[in-house]
């Protein structure tokens, strides 16, 4: 809404006072060829690095948390370069919510599974009698790959999903973005909406 039409060229970008002494809200997005090109070049490397940190976390520094944050930062960069509003429309809500929810579910399932098998929380080796022949893994390998599953499918999913979600929720601000909700939920916070609508409608 306010993000979408904020690219007027005469608008000052630093958000300082204009000559009339009124503090204007800076436009959230202004199109920049330099930033878009840079982000396009950098994204594959950042994504690869994030995936490496995630997948290689058991053998080198890193893990699901750090890797998930780096993967989420890819989407943050896309939003900065191509506009938060258009990125939000491009990024499905089900992906963001799904990453977080599926992550918690997988971590919980792997964690509580051994309890059902008569062991302790996250006791990976309890899976061995059940799945050992099926997967062809030795006992200690269950710990290794169980940890990988928790790091990748659990923590990295949760962190990347939630960080993306936080970013777009913060960017959207207090008022709900869908039109049906805007009628009822827009005016609950007078001070905030006043400054947010101060742009250029």
């Amino acid at each position, binding site marked *: 809404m306010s993000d979408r039409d904020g690219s007027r060229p005469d608008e000052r970008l630093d958000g*300082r006072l204009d000559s009339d002494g009124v503090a204007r809200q800076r436009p959230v997005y202004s199109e920049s060829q330099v930033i878009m090109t840079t982000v396009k070049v950098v994204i594959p490397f950042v994504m690869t690095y994030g995936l490496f940190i995630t997948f290689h976390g058991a053998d080198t520094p890193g*893990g699901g948390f750090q890797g998930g944050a780096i993967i989420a930062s890819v989407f943050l960069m896309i939003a900065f370069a191509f506009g938060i509003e258009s990125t939000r429309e491009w990024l499905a809500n089900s992906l963001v919510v799904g990453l977080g929810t599926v992550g918690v579910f997988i971590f919980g399932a792997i964690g509580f599974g051994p309890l059902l098998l008569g062991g302790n929380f996250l006791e990976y080796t309890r899976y061995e009698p059940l799945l050992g022949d099926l997967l062809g893994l030795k006992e200690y390998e269950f710990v290794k790959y169980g940890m990988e599953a928790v790091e990748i499918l659990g923590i990295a999913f949760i962190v990347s999903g939630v*960080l993306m979600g936080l970013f777009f929720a913060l960017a959207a601000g207090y008022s709900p973005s869908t039109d049906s*909700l805007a009628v009822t939920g827009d005016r609950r916070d007078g001070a905030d909406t006043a400054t947010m609508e101060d742009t250029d409608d």
Partner: protein
Amino acid sequence: MIPPVDAAPVLQSVGITPIEIALFVFVLITAVLTALFRDVLAAIVVFAAYSLGLALIYTFYRAPDVGLTEAAIGAGVTTVFLLLTIAKTTRPATDELFEPIDWPAVAVCGLFALVVGSTLFAFPAVGDPLSPILQNGEVTGYYLANAYSETGAHNAVTSVLAAYRGFDTFGEAVVVFAAGIASLLVLGREVFTT
């Protein structure tokens, strides 16, 4: 990365190196500047530099996992969120570079720093073989000695996080998830994106 498994503690304290001094001075200056800058944008940028300095210190002290987290979350994502926040609000205009200094607050902070700083002398030197963590390292020593054979992970930190202390990690992951839900609740929204 791979900790010495059976090696006797042959670590020697090397004292404080010029790199450490430079990093500490950098972190100290950026921390003070974060508090002093009147312009919010300048404060956020300096705060990101502070996080980056901290990440370097962590890496320097052989804690690359913590350093990575600090760089990704502290210097990266937090900065983006703070920038987003000032983009959504107005920024008080000023021509002054620094905040006026509140001397009573400086006195309180100084006193606090003195009290906390007085405990510094109780710390062993970095890498001191006589430090309690190496002398009575039952827990640490067990992890370092058995992490690879028991979990198959070269990174002992990962094996502690995802296996030995997995329940804590599960709690932390759920906290992150809850933070996402809470943000929707606070903002009065039902969806993250459209």
